[in-house]
């Protein structure tokens, strides 16, 4: 009976992972196709990559997206980290329910609603206080920061709630000030979470189409907006090449990040062991 169950689970896993990975593999394979048709293999070629790098509009859009991603991820870290800290360490305070609501809701809110509501906010603000004047990079960065901050808060919070508070408590008992405790103890301990949160925000910002479309202005076309307008017309080998580059870049980034996280964890464990003499 047990054998039957594990065969069922094995085939479910195989099917599931094939489902997840085969489409991506096909995009990568067909990006090296000589011909323009997706279904006909006409020989190996890298000409679509050359074509892609000659497409100035695409390159401009890619730079816009990278700049927006860097700024949004950094700002999201600055706002999401205290939010995560508040959720896991500050206990009860007035307005906590609303606070946790404002962190959980952006995670599931449909993009069209977030995009429309932010655009209407920016238009209203411009009417009332004259800022932000028009729409462009600034409004996209604000929009991305808002939903990315919610993700950072959740990542930081889950790291903090799985963490031992005894070191922080000991420091507090010995009279260390809260700011000092945060920068000397809490911050180094949540560093992997901060890195994960930043990376997650960066990729979410790089990936967003719907919200950017609502709050973008002239001259702030992002990469997904550019991709979307050409994909609407059908499959193009140039997009396959772009997709391959994005997939490779993100995979490399994630592998590097996870190696760094693992190394810092190991180092921490070793240091704690040396400092306290307690193994583990």
């Amino acid at each position, binding site marked *: 009976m047990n054998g039957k169950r594990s065969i069922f689970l094995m085939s479910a*896993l195989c099917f599931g992972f094939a489902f997840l990975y085969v489409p991506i593999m096909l995009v990568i394979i067909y990006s090296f196709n000589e011909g323009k048709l997706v279904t006909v293999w006409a020989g190996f070629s890298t000409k679509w990559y050359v074509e892609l790098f000659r497409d100035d509009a695409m390159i401009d859009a890619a730079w816009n997206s990278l700049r927006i991603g860097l700024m949004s991820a950094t700002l999201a870290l600055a706002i999401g980290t205290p939010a995560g800290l508040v959720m896991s360490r500050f206990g009860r305070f007035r307005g906590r329910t609303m606070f946790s609501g404002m962190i959980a809701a952006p995670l599931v809110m449909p993009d069209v609603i977030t995009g429309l509501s932010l655009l209407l906010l920016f238009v209203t603000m411009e009417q009332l206080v004259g800022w932000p004047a028009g729409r462009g990079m600034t409004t996209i960065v604000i929009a991305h920061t808002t939903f990315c901050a919610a993700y950072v808060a959740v990542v930081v919070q889950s790291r903090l709630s799985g963490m031992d508070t005894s070191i922080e408590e000991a420091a507090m008992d010995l009279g260390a000030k809260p700011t000092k405790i945060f920068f000397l103890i809490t911050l180094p301990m949540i560093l992997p979470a901060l890195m994960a949160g930043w990376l997650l925000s960066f990729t979410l910002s790089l990936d967003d189409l719907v919200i950017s479309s609502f709050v973008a202005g002239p001259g702030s076309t992002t990469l997904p907006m550019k991709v979307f307008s050409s*994909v609407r017309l059908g499959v193009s080998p140039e997009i396959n090449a772009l997709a391959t580059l994005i997939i490779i870049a993100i995979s490399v980034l994630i592998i590097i990040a996870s190696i760094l996280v693992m190394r810092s964890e190991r180092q921490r464990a070793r240091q704690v062991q040396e400092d306290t003499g307690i193994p583990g």
Partner: protein
Amino acid sequence: MSDIKPTLKQRFDRWMIRHGRVLVIGLPYLWLFLFFLVPFLIVLKISFATAQYAQPPYSALFQWVDEGVNIAINFGNYLFLLSDSLYISAYLNSIRIAAISTVITLLIGYPMAYGIARAKGSTRNLLLMLVILPFWTSFLIRVYAWIGILDREGLINAALMGLHIISEPLIIRQTEVAVYIGIVYTYLPFMILPLYSTLEKMDGSLLEAALDLGCKPWKAFATITLPLSLPGILAGSLLVFIPAVGEFVIPELLGGPNTLMIGRTLWNEFFSNRDWPIASSVAIAMLIFLVVPIMYFQHIQGKTEDPGK
């Protein structure tokens, strides 16, 4: 000796102890309040306005006239949504498509999550990584990948026709089936991860005891594993269902012109018809339906965050 004037640093420290807490709560609170909560109030306001050829393209709700404030609330947008069967069917369609996709995602995701939770140490981490990795790669590209597969001239049709199984290409893209495939594909990691975290925490001894006492494996699963993993099922389903209701990219790229979904309707009202008030009332109508699932999601999210409660 000790009662000399406090240095700047000491004063700063004292100030931080007194006000630091407020500062740490205040920054994210203000940001989210201004850029997440206030916008909804503005959407609500504009949903009661009238469309105008002006900049911005809607009428003002409050106007200062001689005898005071003139309030012009227009319920017409909502009446229009109710009177036009297009909006109602888009609404119902979205809910139906999102619900069916959620069930399919659960049926594929549950055995996968179960399999990962049962795997040994390093294999488990590798499998988990493999689930998370597609979540990091671009959503748009993952939807795009299916165009090449499902299209009339796509890979499925090419393969089936090449093997002489069919003589006419199947129409898969531009149907509802393609939308189901797209939603299940892009949201699968969101289902697997919460399921995995409840299944992984589960106490295996209960199941062992049931099996030792002669319980049939399927019955043990139905009476022990399934109820215990209910929080994961709920969290995963909500993480798939709520965004799927408002999905725009998937029905736009994979669905046909007849695949009406509310997110797509909102997009068209805004970008093609430039009718901001109608777009706002569509958003409010969608939110009214989603408010209960969103609050429920927040409730379970809160419970998992704070196990002491």
